[in-house]
C-alpha cells in the first residue's frame, strides 16, 4: 500500500512536469520492465529498445492511469507487454505459432528444482525457447493471461495456445534438467 501511494505521488509529480520524479519512476521500475522485455525477446539490444519504447508510452499515457482502478505496476506492466507483443507481431508477422520445431520430449511430470537456478539463468532458458513457445509461456505462466486472452492477443486458437504452452513447459523442463546436470558437474 505504501508503494502504491508512493507511486501515485510520483505520477502526480511527473504530470506536473517534475523531471526528477520521472527519473525516480524509471529507477524504480526499469529493471523490472527490462526483465519483462528480455523474456519476450532474446536480444539485449531489442530489449533495451522495447524498454525505451515502453517508458515513452507510459509517460505519454500516464494521464490515463486511474489509481482507483488498480495499482501502477499492473497498469504499466500491461503497457510493456503490449509493446513487446507489438514488436513480435512486427518482426514475425507471418510467423505462425505452429511453425517451430516439434519436440518429442519424454519427460516425467515431477517437479524440477529451481533452487540451483539464478534468475539470470532461468531468463536465459526462457529466451532460448522458440518464439511461439516463449510468448505463450510468458503470457500464461508469468504474466497471468488466460488461454482465451492469449488467443485474442496473438490471433491463434485457444487449443493452439494450450499446445504451445505444453510444449514450452516440456522444453523448459528439459533445459532445466540439463542445467541441473551441468550444475552437478555430471555433464559439465
Amino acid at each position, binding site marked *: 500500500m505504501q508503494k502504491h501511494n508512493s507511486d501515485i505521488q510520483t505520477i502526480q509529480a511527473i504530470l506536473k512536469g517534475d523531471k526528477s520524479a520521472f527519473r525516480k519512476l524509471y529507477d524504480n521500475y526499469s529493471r523490472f520492465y527490462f526483465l519483462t522485455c528480455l523474456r519476450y525477446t532474446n536480444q539485449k539490444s531489442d530489449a533495451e529498445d522495447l524498454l525505451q519504447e515502453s*517508458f515513452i508510452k507510459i509517460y505519454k499515457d500516464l494521464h490515463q492511469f486511474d489509481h482507483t482502478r488498480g495499482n501502477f505496476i499492473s497498469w504499466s506492466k500491461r503497457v510493456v507487454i503490449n509493446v513487446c507483443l*507489438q514488436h513480435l507481431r512486427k518482426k514475425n*508477422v507471418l510467423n*505462425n505459432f505452429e511453425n517451430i520445431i516439434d519436440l518429442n520430449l519424454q519427460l516425467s511430470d515431477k517437479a*524440477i528444482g*529451481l533452487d540451483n537456478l539464478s534468475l*539470470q539463468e*532461468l531468463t536465459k532458458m526462457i529466451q532460448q525457447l522458440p518464439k511461439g513457445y516463449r510468448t505463450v509461456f510468458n503470457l500464461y505462466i508469468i504474466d497471468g493471461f488466460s488461454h482465451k486472452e492469449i488467443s485474442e492477443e496473438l*490471433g491463434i486458437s485457444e487449443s*493452439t495456445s494450450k499446445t504451445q504452452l505444453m510444449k514450452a513447459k516440456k522444453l523448459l523442463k528439459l533445459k532445466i534438467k540439463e542445467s541441473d546436470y551441468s550444475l552437478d558437474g555430471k555433464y559439465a
Partner: protein
Amino acid sequence: MPRDNEIKDLFNNPSSLDNEDWLQPSERVFENITEEVYAVPNKRNHWLIFWLIFGIIITLAFFLLIPGQVLNSSPGNSGDRIMNEFIQSNNLTNQKLPETPEFDIPRENKMTSSEPKTGSKVKPSKPSIKKELNQTSPWVDVPQKQSSNHLHSSTSQIPNIIETSNDQESTTIDLISKGKKSMVNIFESSEEEMNVSIQDDMIEETQFELLTQAPEVNRLHALPLSFDRDKEQLDLQSNILEENRSWKLIAASGYSNWKYVINENLLSALSPFDFTHENGHGAYLKLGIAKSLTERIDLQLAASFAQNKVQSGHNSELTYSLEDESLSSTNEYALTMASPLGFIGSSVVMERDGDFGSESIDFIVDLQNEHLVEQTGLELTTRLNVLDNQRLRVAATFGLSLDYLRIRSNSLRSFTPMHQALRARQGSITADQENIQSFNQSILTGIEIGYKFNNSRALSLEVQYSHGLSPVFELDDFTSKLNRLRIGLTGSHRF
C-alpha cells in the same frame, strides 16, 4: 508445471531485482527516453496544414460558386430580368413589326444618321440619374412625365421607368417592361443610331449597375448597326446566352488502375516470404458540378466512387504434426497473411493424404488472396483549357482529393501445400486488415480531350493520375500508399 507459481513470483517481484545488476539497462536508454518525452515539439503537423489549405479552397469554392448561382437565380436580380427580357425580345423581333415606330420621338430630340454618334446631345446628367435610382426602385411604377421632350412607348402604361434628364430636357425611356419591344423598334427605326446612342449613354454614363450583369447588352453595342444584321444579332445573342451558361454538370466513368506503393520496411519484412502483389483493377464513377471562372478556367467539385480488386500472395512455412492431428487427419492453422493494405487473419485446414514416416513434417504453403477495396472521394479540381475551338477542347486538370477507403472484402483464392502427402481442405478469412487509414488525401493531375457536340454538351476522354499523400495502411514503420490512374469518359452538360 508444478512450479508455475514459483516462476511467476520470481519474475513479478520488482523489489527483488535491486541486486540484479545484469538487469541494469544502459544509460543511453534513459537519455533517449527523456529526449523523446521532454523534447520541444518541433514536428510540423503537415496534415493540419493540408486540411487548412483544403478548407480554405473549399471555402473559396463555396463563395465563388454558390453565391453566384444564388444571385443569378434571385428573383429580384435585375440583370437576370434584363437577360430574360432580351430573350423575349428575340421573339418579338420575329413578330411583324408595326410600320411606324411606336416611339413618339419629338422632332427636336431626333438625331439624323449624319450626326456624330456621340449621344452627347441627349446626355443625361449623372446626379439626376443617381438621385432617381436612389429614390425610386426601377421596378416601381412611376408616373409618366408629360414633358415636351418625352420619349416613350405609345402603347405602354409604363410600370417601370428609368428616367434621365439633362439641363435642357428630360428623357424617359420605357426600358424594362416595354423596353425590349422598344429596343427592337429602335433597331427598326431609321434613326437607330440616335436611339442606340441614347441607350448607350444610359448604360455607360449612368454606370447603371444592374445592367452590368447583362453582358450581352454591351456586346450588342459592338455590332454594326444595320437592318440587315438582325439575324446576325439574334444569332449572336443566342450564342452569348449559351456561353453565359457557366455551370456544367459533369458525369464521368471509366477504368481505374491502383498502384500500391509499399515502403521499404514492409517490403524487407515480407521479402523472405516471396510476397507479391499486382496493381488493382476496377472502375470509377464521378458526378460533379463545374463553374467557368474565366474563359479558360473551370472549377469543379465532384464526388467519386471507385471499386477495385487487387491480388496478392506469398508463402508461409508450416509444420504438420501428427500429435495435433484431428480425427479427420487434418491440422488447422491460424495464419497471418500479408496484403498491400496490411495483415489479415485466416484459418486454413490441411488434410494429410499419406504417411510422412515421421511425427511431423515442415512444408511450404502458397497463399493467394484477393481484396476488394472501395474508395469514395470528394475532388476539387481546376481545369485549364489549353485549346478550345469550335469542336475540340483540350484541358489540363489539377486538384486535390479527400478520400475514404474501405475494405469491402478479402478472400482466400487458393492455398496450396507444397507437399505430396498434404492437400488443402478448407480456408477462410477470420480477420480483415486492422490498420487501414480510412481517410487519406491525394493530389490530382490529368488531361482531358473533349469534343463539343454543341454549345451545351461535350464528351471528353479523361486521363487522370492521383498521387497519394498519406498512407492507406500504417502500422508502426510499415506503410503503404496508393496512387491511382483513371482513364474514362466525361460527359458535361452546360446549364
